[in-house]
């Protein structure tokens, strides 16, 4: 489960529209506050059941219903349960509180992503009524998407980025136009789908490869657990997302799943290798300059 937070107008809806159109082959469920501005392409809607739309690409989009916990439980009971859900937090909600729902049985919290409107976020953070709410949302983010950077000057963009770094020291910050960021940052994709490429936003082609770098590593057999942990703990700030299906020398017969979002990472036991040949594969996505392939490889070999 990914939580998408941010104040009104920060661009959550654009980002969700982007997601529903480019779902990277994942069966997504998007839970929105309201359908207000979600562009559900009528041609793509296969069926509608109450407030739930099923799309031809396997995704569904629904509203909160009576209660988020009940809606999420109902999703798991579908004949084809979603592979990942994205929850749009309301404009005033605390995304961290919403993230607690991701600890319910059958779910795993993937990422807390908060959007910030590069044009207005600093002004909003001073607002008498909602200033503290905006600060709190940013503080809870693992990944901040600084959106609408095309509407501000490079100097403002730099200033906002610095300011975000101060008010949300725990978050990683990326920039976007129309909420278009690589899906791999938002979703838990399979390793072969993670590489950052291009997106079509409106009628423009956005080449993410100038804004992000991807590093892939694969080897047969196992990795040294201690060395891996040491590497992960010392990764540069610019590393945004990582995933690995590994064999660790201290657990050679089962897969170990590595997940990293912003500063948070985990190693969890996966399925046993059984007859398959144990191997280790890792993908990291980072900002330009954050990936030192030679050093990473050396650390793992």
């Amino acid at each position: 489960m990914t939580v998408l937070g941010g104040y009104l107008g920060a661009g959550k809806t654009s980002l969700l529209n982007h997601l529903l159109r480019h779902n990277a082959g994942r069966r997504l469920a998007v839970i929105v506050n309201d359908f207000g501005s979600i562009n559900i392409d009528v041609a793509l809607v296969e069926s509608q059941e109450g407030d739930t739309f099923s799309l031809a690409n396997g995704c569904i989009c629904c509203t909160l219903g009576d209660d988020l916990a009940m809606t999420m439980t109902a999703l798991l009971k579908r004949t084809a349960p979603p592979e990942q859900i994205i929850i749009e937090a309301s404009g005033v909600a605390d995304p961290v509180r919403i993230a607690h729902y991701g600890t319910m049985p059958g779910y795993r919290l993937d990422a807390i992503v908060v959007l910030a409107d590069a044009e207005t976020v600093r002004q909003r953070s001073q607002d008498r009524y909602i200033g503290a709410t905006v600060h709190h949302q940013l503080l809870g983010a693992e990944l901040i998407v600084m959106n609408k950077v095309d509407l501000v000057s490079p100097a403002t963009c730099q200033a906002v980025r610095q300011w975000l770094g101060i008010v949300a020291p725990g978050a990683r910050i990326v920039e976007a136009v129309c909420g278009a960021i690589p899906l791999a940052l938002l979703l838990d994709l399979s390793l072969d789908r993670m590489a950052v490429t291009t997106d079509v936003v409106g009628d423009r082609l956005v080449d993410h490869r100038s804004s992000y770098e991807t590093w892939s590593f694969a080897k047969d057999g196992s990795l040294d657990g201690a060395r891996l942990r040491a590497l992960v703990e010392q990764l540069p700030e610019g590393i945004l997302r990582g995933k690995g299906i590994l064999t660790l020398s201290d657990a050679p017969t089962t897969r170990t799943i590595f997940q990293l979002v912003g500063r948070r990472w985990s190693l969890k036991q996966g399925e046993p290798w059984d007859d398959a040949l144990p191997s280790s594969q890792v993908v990291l996505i980072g900002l330009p300059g954050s990936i030192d392939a030679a050093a990473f490889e050396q650390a793992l070999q």
Partner: protein
Amino acid sequence: MTETTVFTATKIITMNDSQPEASAVAVRGGRILAVGSLDEMEAWGSFSIDNTFCDKVLLPGFVEAHSHSVVGGFWEYPYVGHFDRVAPDGRHITGCRSIAAVIERLRAADADLDDPEEPLIAWGLDPIYFSGESVRAATLDRVSTTRPVYVHHMSGHIVSVNTALMRHEGIDAESETVGIVKDGSGQPVGELQGMPAIMSVRSVFERLWSSLNASTAKWRFGHIARNAGVTTASELGAAAVTPEAIRQWQLVVNDPAFPARIVIAYSNRFGGPSDPAQMAAQAARLAEHSSDKLRLGTIAKIWLDGSIQGFTARLRWPYYLNGTNGLWYIAPERFREELLAYHNAGLTVHVHANGDEATDLLLDTVEQVLLASPRPDHRHTAQHNQLASADQFRRMARLGMSANMFINHIYYWGDQHLTETVGPERADRMNALATAKRTGVQFSMHSDEMVTPLGGLMLVWSAVNRVTATGQVLGKQERISLHDALRAVTVDAAYQLKMDHEVGTIECGKWADFAVLEADPFAVDAMALKDIPVWGVVLAGKLHPADGRGRE
């Protein structure tokens, strides 16, 4: 010709300032034909006399402009709260003032269940009164080690469960859900905080949930109203307004045996359109389902913040004693859009604003909406409004707004407000009824049933005494007169529901809706007001005696 019945009473307190008192009231076709002395009724021709109330006192039926019907569903299960309550069947239920009392009540309920597999559900638990002791599995296992036990806290956000239920639902040391409280050794202790954790006992929660939405819940709500002398109650936006739900309301409320009128506020909390204009249009369209007893399409509800005792209300500086501030439940821009849409559709909007910063946002927004779209007699109402100060009341008056005050808080949480939430000065002016009166704001008072028990007499008692549960007086300068207090639970509450032309006074032309009391409120000690026995109600001339008036 329609028959005329004249009811006589020791005293009829009309709340009509043109004719404050009478001894007889004539009723024809459910409406009040005449009010005065028995002699004065002769002008309308022949009539029969009903002397049922010859030793009783009649008031206009109490009007509750902020309550929730969901409480009727909870009454399917035993109540284990701290304060006494009257059950829908009229039994006086003593509060559980100790953990031992909770256990005793749950054991009795356990013995009443035949099926050993059936979960025992209870509600109303408020452990803040047990001086730091928690009610968790170790306690609830003393009720049963085999039957699942589920106890819903009064706050609504916490559930206590026993070991049998945790075992049944697979809650153990491995459970990772946030809100499953664990001890130092990592074992779950039987307390579930927040919905993600409560959903870990889904099967029992869903059982409770279906009770809350059943038609029996609505019937019980009507019986609670009748037992408290309330003839017009509101469902202020916490129930679904789907076609099925509306049909259920119609079946229940329009039944001649149902003893109350119900006004349902529209809200989109349980689905429906999200575009403000569509919401408002749908809300207004519901009017076609209205009847004399069921009122739809006239009022709407919006929530701005949380509660003061939950530390989630939005406060002005200096915030809570602990330095924190609460939460917004809606973004200010979105609030303005919704308010404007309802306003333009002709609805009266009831806005939940507990803290004074929420009241500020409400006033700012109403002002903007009125400048954009002037409308006479809108009656937009600030609900709860607990910390509103004199400057805010002055603004409210100028904007043509009403205030519905949560006066019962003084009794139920006043002690906590003094020492834990806002401190003595602000606690003293909480629910500042005298200030509202002085500044010329139209105001009423509410129970927010189920947060506090429904009933006009308790509200009146709170308003004229301002006494807390431990007997302290909070802000005696904010006490109001008995007459003003009675107005606030009758005609002034009817005004906020846009029904003051139909109910709220005993006056020619209005519905014959009466609260029937065993004593005259003006003749008893102010501290005895809440204990005046209620015989029951008259609704449109039909008698509905309260159940179990003999009490426990």
